Structure formats: structure tokens, C-alpha cells
């Protein structure tokens, strides 16, 4: 049951009850009824878990083709997830995952 901290920023928090920070407990492995079940819980699974459990509205603004919408940046412990294996990055206890959208005001 890794407990991870999830944060939404840049407007994405609006999709999650306008709350920026969430503490989340996930199963150790992807549940048996899931796609590719049995693998350790990774960010790909977290994204779907957030969609199914935490998202309040308009899933299409957060998820596209079972990953995040291309305009959303995912950060794992303050590092761009592309440097960490993207969706395949396995979650460890106390990881901090941040989802941000770009701001554009000035």
C-alpha cells in the first residue's frame, strides 16, 4: 500500500474539487481485474485510479488514451516523468507526484 502525495497545479485542481494536495493510498499491485493486473503500481495506474476515484468532472480534460492529456506535465519527486520512465515509473512510499497544466496569464 504505497502512500503517495498527489498535487494538482496550473488549474488542474479545478477538476479535483479545487483541492491542490491529496494524500493517497494505493494497492501494492494492480488489482486482478485491471489491465495488466498484478504488476507493481506505477504512474500509469495512478492516472487511471485518479480518474476513477478522485476526479470530479470532465475526465477528458485529464485523461486521453489511458494516459494524461498531452498538455499536462507529470512530475515525480520534482523531476519530469519523462526522465523517470513515464507511466512505467513504479511508485514508492512517500513519492510526490505533481500534475501541472501550463499557465498563460501575464
Amino acid at each position, binding site marked *: 500500500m504505497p502512500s503517495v502525495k498527489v498535487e494538482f497545479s496550473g488549474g488542474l485542481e479545478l477538476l479535483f474539487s479545487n483541492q491542490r494536495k491529496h494524500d493517497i493510498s494505493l494497492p501494492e499491485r494492480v488489482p486482478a481485474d485491471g489491465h495488466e493486473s498484478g504488476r507493481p503500481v506505477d504512474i500509469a495506474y495512478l492516472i487511471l485510479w485518479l480518474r476513477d476515484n478522485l476526479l470530479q468532472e470532465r475526465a477528458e480534460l485529464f485523461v486521453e488514451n489511458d494516459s494524461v492529456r498531452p498538455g499536462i506535465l507529470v512530475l515525480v519527486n520534482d523531476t519530469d516523468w519523462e526522465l523517470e520512465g513515464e507511466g512505467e515509473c513504479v511508485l514508492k512510499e512517500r513519492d510526490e507526484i505533481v500534475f501541472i*497544466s501550463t499557465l498563460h496569464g501575464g
Partner: protein
Amino acid sequence: MTRNASSAQLSLEDYRRYGRQMILNGFGLPGQLKLQQASVVVVGAGGLGCPALQSLAAAGVGRIGIVDHDTIELSNLQRQILHTESRVGTPKALSAAAAIKQINSRVHVETHATALTSANAIAVLSGYDIILDCTDNLPTRYLLSDTAVRLNRPLISGAAQQFDGQLCTYNLPLSSYASCSSSTGSDEEKDGVRGPCFRCLFPKPPAPEMAGSCEELGVLGAVTGVIGNLQALEAIKLFTGLHDSKPSLLIYSALNTPPFRSIKLRARRATCPACGDDGAKVGQIEETDYVAFCGGARPDWVSRGL
């Protein structure tokens, strides 16, 4: 950046004026001369552009371009701190130029009181070493990124909304900028050593529903002040060779604890339609209608009750 620093001179008056930064470690006379010979263009003389322009002019950047087609409104004065009550109604580019001239008359200021479009972006921006994105809308942000990639210029991008801000230098030279941008390096050599562009990170704009402007969502002036000053600092670090050349994104949230978070960014994306490798690019941007790409005209938030 085009002339040779070692042959340049600093006037006695400038020694006095800039003494407090010239005594800094790693700055010195060479740093001041690099600033004097540098040029920067600030796109947007609003909430971010005003503090950025102020800091750049005070530090002695030699040539400063200001691009803004807007005129000053009373509602701007809450954060656009170069503009004054008496100049309400006049063009922001001219007002900002007048203000920074009062701080430093030795800076050469060029005003472009025109809207930046895909038709004029190359012409307007190509005359400057570094581009600051101080705009307030997504279509112009993509246009600036694509243009910076084509011109091979660093793009120091600031954004601020509500209590939040973001700062990122796109297309960052990954070896020392002060050396790699000298006249000895060809454009091709420089091409291979750049950080990601805006499109690498955000290939798709946020949904228009989530992308209100400052006019719609509001913003605090001190937030634009923080980010605008950080943009100026990025430029000064690049000009003087003090930048660590590591692509990163700074996110700021005035009400968060801790308020700042720095993110280590990926390399540029080989498949990026803007800055990707020839042959590997996916999609193309040549004929992009930037406004349409960002979802067309923004929704009317007031009528939607938000």
C-alpha cells in the same frame, strides 16, 4: 553579443552606476560589458513585462525591445507598475519605454506598438539575442516558442495567474550561452545543444475551458512582480555566463507551503513538430492557425457563471 567584449569600453559614469553588480563574483567588468552589448526583446509590457523591463534596464542591458499593441487601462495599474495614471489611454510600449528611460537613459529602447503575428514575428524578434515571453495568452505563447526555435534564441517564459506563477527558459543553450553564442559558433553547432521548447513540454494546449486570461481569472500584482523579476534574472544569468544550463521549470504558488518548487526537465523531444530532429518530427506547424490551435476564441466566463 555580436561585438567583441574585450574591445569594448565602459564609461567612468557606468563604473559608478553599475559598481554594486560589477563587484559580484563571476560578474565584474566582463559581465557588465556583456550586458551592455546584449539585446533583449520583451513581448508584453503588462504585469510580467513591467517588472522585467525595469530590472533589465536598471542592470544596463544595452538594447531593449518592447512589443505590445495595447493601450493602458485603469484596471492595468494594479500590477503593470511602469504605467501611470496620467498615461492611461496611451500605448503600453511607449509608456514602458518612457518609464525605463527615466531609470536609465543610456539604454537603447526600441518600441514595437504592434500585435505579434505569425506574419511579423520573425521580423520583429530576429534582431534580439534573447526573447522574454511576458504575454497573456496561449496562441502567442506557442507562436513565440516556434519563432524562438526558428531563430535559435532562448525564450524566457513567465506566466502568472491568480496566486500562481511559472517560469521556464525554453530552447535553453545547454553549454554556456555566453561562449556558445559568440560569432565563432555556427547555427548548426548550436542546434544540437538546446533544451526543450514550449511545445516539447506542452504539445497540446489546455482545454479552452481551463484557460482563462488574467482579465478573467485575476492575478495579484506582487505575483507578476516576482515572476517578472525572475525572468530578468534568467536573462542576466544567460548574458553573463552565470546560468547553469540545466533546463528547469519553477512553479510558484503564493498561498502554498512551500511556495516554490523547481522541476528538472527532460531533453527536447526528437519528435517535436517545432524543435525535433529532421525526419523524426511528428506533425508540422508551418501553417498553424495559433488561435484555432488553442481552441478558438476563449469562452465567455461571465456568462458561464464562473
